[in-house]
């Protein structure tokens, strides 16, 4: 699965996610990537989110929309909300994976409970970071 989140100079957020699913899938299985609210969410002044991982768990936890709700209603930072879900509710359920999120100021957050996540960002100052492993 791949994805991206961005903030443009007009203050608009966006998120996108794309996937081939899981190897050997049958029965018309669809994971969270295609489901708005589970794998993808963008809401100006709140957050943009794209997720990757065991899709069935991300569907059940409604991960992307839940992250936005925590920011909107609990006034959590995007980082706090992302960690609460990925390291808490998702992990407790047995779901492995991660997400990228961007707040209204263009700060990027990466959260994962797996050993790694291919990821990269360019911050508002133009600094590029590329990482693979969690540590």
């Amino acid at each position, binding site marked *: 699965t791949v994805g991206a*989140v961005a*903030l443009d100079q007009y203050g608009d957020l966006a998120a996108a996610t*794309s996937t081939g699913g899981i*190897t050997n*899938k049958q029965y018309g299985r669809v994971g969270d990537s295609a489901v708005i609210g589970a794998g993808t969410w963008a809401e100006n002044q709140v957050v943009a989110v794209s997720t990757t991982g065991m899709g069935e768990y991300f569907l059940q936890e409604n991960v992307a929309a839940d992250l936005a709700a925590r920011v909107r209603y609990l006034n959590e930072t995007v980082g706090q909300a992302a960690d609460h879900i990925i390291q808490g509710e998702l992990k407790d359920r047995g779901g492995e994976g991660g997400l990228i999120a961007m707040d209204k100021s263009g700060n990027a957050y990466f959260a994962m409970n797996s050993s790694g996540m291919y990821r*990269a960002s360019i911050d508002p100052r133009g600094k590029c970071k590329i990482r693979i492993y969690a540590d």
Partner: protein
Amino acid sequence: MPFSIAIHGGAGTILREQMTPELQREIEAALEKSVRAGQDILSSGGSAVDAVTAAVKVLEDSPHFNAGRGSVLTHREMVEMDASIMSGKGKNAGAIAGVKHIRNPIELAKAVMEDSEHVFLIGEGAESFAFEHDFLYTEQDYFYTDRRYDQLQSMKEKGLFALSEFRYPDDNKYG
């Protein structure tokens, strides 16, 4: 206003001991190409929607990631891809699932968001919509890679659906 972009190419178990320097360089180069494609659009005044689309397209075109060209294979040895996109401005959204002949599924999701009255299209209907909107039919051969075929055969032999064979360092990186 400042602008910013972040991308991912999938999470899961990625084995350090099987990550060769050459493969790591290729993956990191693709990640950088992706994030810079989005940044180029943002720095020239483009929208966040166009930026995330461009960034995801780069990753879909790479065989290293489970999307587009590098998609894993289904039980029937086909690719079957899903994608979605959402704009924070007005919370517009577009999504597609189960498409087999679309080179860049994220572009189709964007077309659903911008050019249809719908949010989510699946399978044959999604492809019919695509061809009515000038998307090209892409043969399955384009998506085929030896890596994904070997992965599938191994899964079939074991009757598994998850990625538990570690021939490549990220074979257990989830789709």
